[in-house]
């Protein structure tokens, strides 16, 4: 399989994730779509590592995973806090973050 196949799959998954972020309203599902986009970029990084014969791409993918894990923790805590005050996890209801 040429790297192009993997990159095409990565692009498709990234686009699906972006579409989900644009279309969905549930904040948790939006967050899952962001995770899908991060996973798609990881696939591209791993493919590039194999293409160039160096492990640097895998290291970058590793760092992306670490950052994604930290982001999930903080993001879900924010979603929980908003849910506690507004009893809703819809992104439409959180249009006044100040209050």
């Amino acid at each position, binding site marked *: *399989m040429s790297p192009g196949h993997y990159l095409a799959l990565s692009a498709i998954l990234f686009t*699906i994730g972006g579409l989900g972020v*644009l279309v969905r309203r549930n904040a948790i599902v939006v967050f*899952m779509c962001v995770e899908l986009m991060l996973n798609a970029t990881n696939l591209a990084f791993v493919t590039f590592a*194999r293409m160039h014969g160096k492990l640097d791409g895998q290291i970058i993918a590793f760092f992306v995973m*670490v950052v994604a894990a930290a982001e999930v923790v903080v993001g879900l805590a924010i979603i929980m806090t908003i849910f506690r005050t507004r009893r809703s996890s819809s992104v439409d209801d959180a249009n006044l973050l100040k209050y």
Partner: protein
Amino acid sequence: MTAHVIAGQVADAQPGEAFIFWLLAVVSVCAALGMIFMRRAVHSALLLAVVMLSLAALYAVQDAPFLAFVQVIVYTGAVLMLFLFVLMLVGVSSTDSLVETIRGQRLWGAVAALGFLVLLAAGFGNAALGDSAGLKQANAEGNVIGLARLLFTQYVFAFEVTSALLITAALGAMVLAHRERTTPKPTQKDLSVKRFKSAAHPGPLPGPGTYARHNAVDMPALLPDGTPSELSVNPVIAARADTASRHTDLYGESEGDAVTADVAAVQAATGRAEGADAEGRAVVRSTGISEGEAER
């Protein structure tokens, strides 16, 4: 040069790679599409798990076994469990409303996604993607050792910064999830004082009545003067049933009437053993065996 490229291709080729790639590509794209279009958030989370596991397999095919395992452990294990945990806290039945708050949001979202995909495809199409060099040489010592060699030499600063990021994330999650108590926590003494001030019933409430022929919690206990105590049963049960009238056979009438009523109830329930009432009562009177046996 060509010989080198061909050699690289041959060395790089994985057994059965085409089959695995096409299978997992179809599975992951279908699961990702399903993740978007499922209305229930839990279904989306489970489909995301499918995507992540397929990607882990694709990493393994592409000579990245360490990342494949990290993908399974961190993403499918930890991150997705966190998602499901928050989903359970928020409410499993939470579904998106189908009303569009922005007119034509879905249509324009799809158009934008298609345009972006075309843009990406054009970019990849124009890029000079050579054949993959393969990681046989880089993974000569083993994938984990090769990654560690890079991580602790060239990328050691980024690695240290990552630890700061993780600590910050943990602290941030604790601060955000912390709920401030607005009133001081009542001590045992406070609770006791409050109980006596209310003047309702400071001591423990009486337990429900347990008798020879009734051992359910909906039977009220009898006070010394023979009246049933409504306090002894759960207020929910007391509100639903006339618990006070259940004691008629215990304090209002004779024991024989109670036996007759029980036999009638058993007959009504089973629809047989007619004529057992007189004999049963005679047996009770003559031999003095317990009522439970007479009823049988």
